């Protein structure tokens, strides 16, 4: 059970730990709601945020430190970490150790990790999963503005007359931003929304124009835009001349090889009219925001793609103005905080640079750092290559799951398994990465952590604890400081409270200001402990404009922004062996590798098995069936997943969600398929364009299994949590398991209910304990097993009633309940069948659907899907 901390009962204001929108929320541990006063969300929450309390609880938590399989004391574990790091550093130098951290860390954790690694261990080998998320945007910002700054704020989306969403399924990945936009579009239908995405996603629901661009063509699209703007006299010459450099070279590059507009449209895979429509709107609309996300960043030329967008904004003078600007939105709750403190291998700290001697000196002085790193460290992909090569011999991974999230993920796993020392700090006890750990350290989870985060619009908010730490879980900054002390750096890491760290970091941003950067938190350097405690969300730089660069003075040495010539990448060549392009991304109701959302049964009601999406016509070509199985193969790896038809996909396209890990299915880690190709400037991997092949897989048997058991070793399995202790498995395979085999999947039981029809291949088992409680349920059949899953799940751990026994084996209470289809509205568990019924009863709009069955009236994430029901 959850334990609330002593002062609990009092509602506490905190920040959502999911995406980069950074919504405020209020919770006392038993109830949770959006914070009406938080500027990001004004009380709204998406389905993931709304169900945060479902993800809490001690089950599945890492509760004490472990060395190997042994539970040890913190003292012992910390000694071991420090000793091993010390030995490697002594023998092989500081570059033989590394930290690999996460956008899930609080700013305070990040600050301490960065300070320890760069300032005191003396290597810049600290990288982060933010490398995978938006490091291309970081470089694009730095190249254009001289500093990694998102100039605008969310309000710009509401002030804009044209919003361009590119490489972003905002509706699913950043639902609250999408809802703000949707609300404004409803209020002001004249505002235009353009979605640029190879997929027709839920976000397109809001679009006046969807450009289903060919993957990898964004530079060509935005170069074309620049040329169009110039050709149509829509560039702001005065602005360019006064505040920028590089326009002419950039325009020349943009024009290079550009023939006719129809030729460009054909190259992009777009209708010429649509392309010109977009260009015309952009040219004509002063208040234009271009929101971009992973579809831009996660490419071999992600940095150029970002700069191509920024170029168009600089050329029109639309940066840092109300309702106008390029807007990179981040994926993680504190990617921005990490960027600010400098927790990336190619940054120093507080927006200062490793290779700038003045910056270096300032930071060394500020920290009193004896061995401040002088050259960039290894970025994520290279870091794990170095681990594979054995040049990095000890790594401490904090709050992230690289075995699943890095490209060529199977190679990453092999590298970690072979690595001498792998320390993993996590709040859960079972991840694919923890499996490789030599030392595991229990971390605090959301609700227990105390510190600050920065969202995509530079608003710093507090994550506050309202739950007691379970077991021996401790803050990550504490563990880092403890190791720092053991390495001999006690004085520099004598923090007792996150407020101390925050004050030091805020003071340090004075260095940034000294070097002409926007980052400036110095006003908070004298914050008292209670001031920290009572911190309300504030956007940096404090007390100035909502936006950066409104005065067109940029953070470069000469104060001018740079337009960056971007050459389109060479055309993608598909091979006959790998003729398709595999895209990857987020789902509406899941988050990252499911270590948190995977604890909430409700969040699986939208999608409960790993899948690949494919257009029906492509599927037909490859012999695939809706709801069937497919093997997806790339040069790097393979997956076995279900098939979903989606006519929003292009002819050659596949899409797989990034969430499924070996904890939830047999083989569907999409990143095991993604080749480790990175952007040359940012080191960010290209997750969106994997050459791939697909083929049908026909199982001879199917199974449905419920209980607390581990995953059976079968060809295909996928599981979802039923409650804190039980799973529901979908199984499939080639060779029908015999009774000895399938009984081994099941727990010891006092009584068994069974059905055996060997000739038909039907086998069922219900395991009962001595109190007649149901502890496991299994059905095997040559065809997919249908059962009343909700009812069955409710039966687990309950005593079986006499009248239920036959129904229990059948998997249905036999009360004539009909299958209502999948859940569309997760918040109120409204199913397809209920929606169709509501439509039959006269609901004609989404709001009438809401009145009729509550669907879409809470978080609103399902509204794009609801529209389909009223439209059909």
């Amino acid at each position: 059970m959850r334990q609330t901390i002593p002062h609990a009962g009092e509602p506490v204001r905190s920040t959502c730990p999911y995406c980069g929108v950074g919504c405020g929320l209020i919770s006392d541990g038993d109830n949770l709601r959006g914070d009406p006063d938080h500027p990001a969300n004004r009380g709204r929450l998406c389905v993931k945020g709304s169900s945060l309390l479902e993800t809490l609880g001690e089950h599945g938590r890492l509760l004490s430190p472990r060395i190997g399989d042994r539970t040890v004391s913190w003292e012992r574990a910390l000694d071991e970490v420090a000793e091993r790091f010390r030995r490697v550093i002594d023998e092989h130098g500081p570059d033989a150790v590394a930290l690999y951290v996460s956008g899930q860390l609080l700013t305070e954790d990040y600050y301490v990790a960065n300070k320890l690694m760069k300032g005191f261990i003396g290597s810049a080998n600290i990288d982060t999963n933010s490398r995978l998320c938006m490091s291309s945007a970081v470089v694009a910002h730095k190249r254009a503005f001289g500093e990694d700054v998102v100039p605008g704020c969310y309000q710009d989306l509401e002030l804009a007359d044209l919003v361009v969403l590119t490489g972003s399924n905002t509706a699913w990945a950043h639902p609250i931003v999408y809802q703000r936009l949707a609300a404004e579009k409803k209020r002001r239908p004249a505002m235009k929304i353009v979605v640029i995405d190879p997929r027709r996603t839920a976000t397109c629901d809001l679009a006046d124009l969807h450009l289903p661009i060919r993957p990898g063509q964004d530079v060509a699209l935005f170069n074309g835009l620049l040329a169009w703007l110039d050709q149509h006299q829509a560039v702001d010459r005065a602005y360019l001349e006064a505040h920028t450099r590089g326009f002419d070279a950039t325009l020349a590059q943009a024009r290079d090889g550009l023939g006719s507009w129809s030729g460009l449209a054909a190259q992009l895979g777009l209708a010429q009219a649509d392309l010109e429509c977009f260009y015309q709107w952009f040219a004509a609309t002063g208040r234009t925001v271009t929101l971009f996300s992973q579809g831009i960043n996660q490419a071999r030329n992600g940095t150029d793609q970002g700069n191509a967008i920024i170029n168009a904004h600089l050329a029109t003078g639309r940066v840092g103005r109300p309702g106008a600007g390029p807007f990179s939105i981040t994926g993680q709750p504190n990617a921005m905080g990490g960027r600010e403190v400098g927790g990336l291998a190619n940054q120093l700290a507080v927006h200062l640079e490793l290779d700038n001697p003045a910056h270096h000196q300032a930071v060394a002085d500020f920290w009193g750092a004896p061995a401040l790193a002088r050259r960039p460290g290894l970025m994520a992909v290279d870091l794990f290559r170095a681990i594979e090569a054995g040049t990095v011999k000890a790594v401490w991974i904090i709050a992230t799951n690289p075995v699943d999230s890095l490209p060529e993920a199977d190679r990453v796993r092999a590298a970690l398994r072979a690595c001498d020392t792998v320390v993993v700090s996590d709040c859960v006890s079972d991840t694919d990465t923890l499996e490789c750990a030599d030392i595991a350290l229990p971390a605090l989870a959301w609700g227990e952590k105390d510190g600050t985060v920065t969202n995509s619009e530079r608003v710093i908010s507090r994550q506050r604890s309202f739950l007691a730490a379970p077991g021996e879980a401790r803050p990550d900054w504490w563990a880092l400081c403890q190791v720092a002390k053991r390495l001999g750096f006690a004085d520099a890491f004598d923090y007792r409270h996150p407020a101390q760290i925050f004050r030091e970091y805020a003071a340090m941003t004075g260095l940034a200001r000294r070097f002409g950067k926007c980052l400036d938190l110095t006003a908070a350097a004298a914050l008292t402990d209670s001031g920290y405690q009572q911190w309300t969300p504030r956007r940096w730089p404090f007390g100035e404009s909502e936006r950066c660069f409104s005065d067109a003075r940029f953070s470069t040495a000469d104060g001018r922004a740079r337009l960056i010539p971007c050459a389109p990448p060479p055309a993608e060549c598909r091979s006959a062996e790998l003729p398709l392009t595999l895209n990857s991304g987020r789902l509406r109701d899941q988050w990252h590798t499911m270590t948190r959302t995977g604890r909430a049964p409700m969040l699986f009601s939208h999608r409960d098995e790993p899948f690949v999406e494919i257009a029906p016509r492509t599927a037909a070509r490859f012999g695939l069936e809706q709801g069937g199985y497919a093997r997806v193969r790339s040069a790097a790896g393979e997956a076995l997943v279900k098939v979903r038809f989606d006519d929003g996909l292009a002819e050659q396209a596949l899409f797989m969600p990034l969430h499924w890990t070996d904890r939830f299915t047999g083989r569907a880690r999409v990143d095991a398929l993604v080749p480790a190709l990175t952007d040359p400037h940012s080191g960010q991997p290209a997750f969106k364009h994997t050459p791939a092949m697909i083929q049908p897989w026909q199982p001879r048997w199917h199974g449905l299994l419920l209980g607390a058991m581990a995953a059976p070793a079968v060809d295909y399995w996928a599981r979802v949590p039923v409650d804190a202790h039980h799973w529901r498995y979908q199984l499939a395979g080639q060779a029908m398991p015999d009774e000895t085999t399938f009984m081994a999947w099941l727990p010891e039981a006092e009584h068994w209910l069974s059905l055996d029809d060997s000739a038909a291949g039907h086998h069922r088992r219900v395991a009962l304990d001595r109190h007649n409680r149901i502890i496991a349920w299994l059905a095997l059949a040559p065809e997919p097993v249908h059962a009343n899953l909700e009812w069955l799940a409710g039966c687990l751990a309950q005593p079986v009633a006499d009248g239920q026994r036959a129904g229990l084996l059948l998997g249905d209470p036999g009360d004539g309940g009909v299958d209502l289809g999948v859940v569309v509205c997760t918040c109120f568990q409204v199913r397809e069948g209920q929606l169709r019924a509501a439509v039959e009863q006269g609901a004609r709009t989404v709001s009438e659907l809401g009145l009729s069955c509550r669907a879409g009236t809470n978080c609103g994430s399902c509204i794009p899907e609801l529209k389909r029901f009223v439209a059909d």
Partner: protein
Amino acid sequence: MGERPALVVVGNGMAACRLLEELNRLTPSRYRITVIGDEPGGGYNRVMLSPLLAGGTDEATLLTHPRAWYQERGIELITGTPVTRIDRTRRRVHTADGREFAYHRLVLATGAAPRSLPVPGADLNGVLGFRDLRDARHLLALPRCRVVVVGGGFLGLEAAEALLRRGHSVTLVHGRSHLLNQQLDAVAGARLQRDLQQRGLAFVLGQRPAALEDDGHGKVAAVRLTDGRRLPADVVVQAIGIVPRAQLARDCGLAVGARGIRVDDTLQTFDPRIYAIGECVEHRGRTFGLVAPLFEQARVCASHLAELGHRRYRFEGTVTRLKIAGIDVLSAGDFEGEGEVITVQDPAGGYRRLLLRDGRLAGLVLYGDVSDGPFYERLWREGRDLGALRLTLPFGAAACGDVAA
């Protein structure tokens, strides 16, 4: 109206009584009917002997055809004197007390006798059968004692359970490896054994009596088993099956097969004036021990005696049920032959075994929960193709959408 033709019925058991009822319904006055029964009274329901012994009913309830019933219908009922001879040439039936009865038509409904244990000592005092009312009365009158019941078929089980209820210490000896091996598969047999053991019944399976021991006074003292074990017993009840009583028929030259009196589909014997029904007959190589086919035979036979002649007897599989309070067992058809077996087991609930052949229900065993018995019986009799119901079939009528219920 001249003299009516004489119909003599030898036997007054359940088949005979049913024949009389059918005749009475079809043609109440065609024949002058004489019924000659071995047993002293009117017709009674033999099936209810087990409940009677178990204390669930009384004799009055058993009596289905009191003497008055015969009187009211002008049927002469002769009891207490067995038929000794049939003179087919003169069409006369002779009884032990020297009487003779002429017939135009004769029906043999002589039933069956309990099979005696083929071991030394089977003739000792205290070695009983459980076949008729007299046996039941005898068992009801026993003082509390040690009983060994030999035979784990329906009759033996019912007797054993009834005697247990009466307070006797009862051990059932069964030569096969599981109980009711004609009606149940091994799993259901084991379930039955477990449930009866829980009631206090003791079992020795896979053993037969080798001898019955004398107490020195001509009374049984123990059962010696084939493995040498000795079961002390004050009373031994034999329930190892029945033998059709065909001697009368054999003696008068009717065709008698290895087991019973041979009849055709109209229940006629070798002699066209003579019919035979019930446990004494052998029809197409088959003999009978359950009441349902007997009744059907009586119905067919009656239609021919009534000169309607429009029926044929065809054996239809029978659904059998065990008559032990609180233990529901249902069995039908061929449940262990070639085919595809579906089983459903619930240690605290039911057990089901369905045998499908060519996609059709060939036989079944239900143990514990027999509520779907009628559903399966219908599917079994109709021979319906069950392909589409394969998955839900073992879960019964409700799960199958009630197609046949």
